[in-house]
């Protein structure tokens, strides 16, 4: 089932001679269970594509559909509601609220959406456990936990509730390689459980966790791999 679809999407900043084509004529479809990596040089439009996919920015042409809903048809209020309920974001710098504890940060999208405090906390504790955080972390503030733990909290926040689309922008940031890999495993697992994931990365090793890789250059999709076959084929004929 298609969760995200970009149909002929363009994003132009400015006008006339000063116009900058951040993204041009992008077509992309991501189904439930799929993790797609976006790669390309700096300034190639990776983050623009991610922001458009999550409704954080609007295209100047084309249409973005999340679970079949055209984002351009939604009022600001409904768009915000769709983002809270259906889309999870993981950013490079975690974007945790420093004055809230780990559990409060994770619970934030539910509380903003009107869920009661105790119910939201229960869901947050379950989400933190799902990303491998011990209960004692739940009541610590972001500056009292490690970078790896903070990113797990950010992922718990992105996955809480019934989100079916997870957008991650260089989510392993400054994490060491094994901690970064744990973060990608979480993302992979969530997709294996039925979410659709879009991962912006410049790191080929991280793109290795994806089902497909889309290459961007100068705002255009220049190449796109097809899903993998079964891995056994790889070692046949190895010498």
């Amino acid at each position, binding site marked *: 089932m298609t969760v995200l679809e970009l149909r002929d999407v363009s994003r132009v900043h400015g006008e006339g001679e000063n116009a900058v084509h951040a993204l041009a004529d992008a077509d992309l479809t991501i189904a439930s269970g799929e993790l797609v990596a976006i*790669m390309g*040089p700096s300034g190639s439009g990776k983050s623009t594509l991610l922001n458009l996919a999550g409704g954080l920015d609007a295209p100047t042409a084309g249409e973005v559909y999340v679970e079949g809903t055209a984002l351009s048809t939604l009022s600001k209020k409904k768009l915000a509601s769709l983002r809270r309920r259906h889309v999870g974001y993981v950013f490079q710098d975690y974007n945790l609220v420093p004055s809230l504890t780990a559990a409060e940060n994770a619970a934030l999208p539910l509380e903003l959406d009107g869920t009661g405090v105790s119910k939201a906390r229960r869901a947050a504790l379950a989400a933190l456990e799902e990303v491998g955080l011990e209960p004692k972390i739940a009541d610590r503030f972001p500056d009292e936990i490690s970078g790896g733990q903070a990113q797990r909290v950010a992922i718990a926040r992105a996955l809480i509730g019934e989100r079916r689309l997870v957008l991650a922008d260089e989510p392993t940031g400054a994490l060491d390689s094994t901690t970064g890999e744990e973060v990608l*495993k979480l993302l*992979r697992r969530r997709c294996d459980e039925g979410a659709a994931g879009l991962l912006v990365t*410049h*790191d*080929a*090793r991280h*793109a*290795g*966790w*994806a*089902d497909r*890789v889309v*290459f961007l250059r100068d705002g255009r999709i*220049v*190449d796109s*791999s097809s899903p*993998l076959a079964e*891995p056994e*084929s*790889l*070692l046949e004929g*190895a*010498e």
Partner: protein
Amino acid sequence: MSVKHSLLALLERGPAYGYQLRAAFESATGSTWPLNIGQVYTTLSRLERDEMVEALPENESGQRPYRITEAGRRHLAGWFASPIRAADRPRDELTIKLALAVTTPGVDVADVIQRQRAATLRTLQEYTRLKADEEADLAWKLVLESMIFKAEAEVRWLDHTEAVVARAELPAPSPFGHYEDSVEPSLPVEEKR
């Protein structure tokens, strides 16, 4: 790949005969580099000649186990202690191909790079999927991670090469003197996908 050192390392676990050594090698490396049984026995003979292993009496099934000697142990320790030099590795066809791509008329270098990058990423995805198997043992995971990091390095090098080539104004390569009048060859990469 050094079959000699691999066999010595396996014999350090205890005496073993050829088929056992081959199975242990393939188990440790996930069958990435299949070993021919003939290769195993030839290498064991050479190791015996060089007094690095010694043959033990045949067992009831007619299999002859080998045991590592002190000389073999010292040789093995020396191997573990010595870094592999880059110059020991075979010529890298990809490097040669790209060096020729930038100096061959009519080759779309960006296209060559993108094809390679997509292929390397595909391999990297497959390695990652194999590594994600929770039942894979540690030695196999280490082999896979080595291949993953090499593939990653290759993609980074391709990214870098692409940027360098894009910035460089490639001069038209000069033809060889005595071929100046010959017909220009046509290259398959000129065809657009």
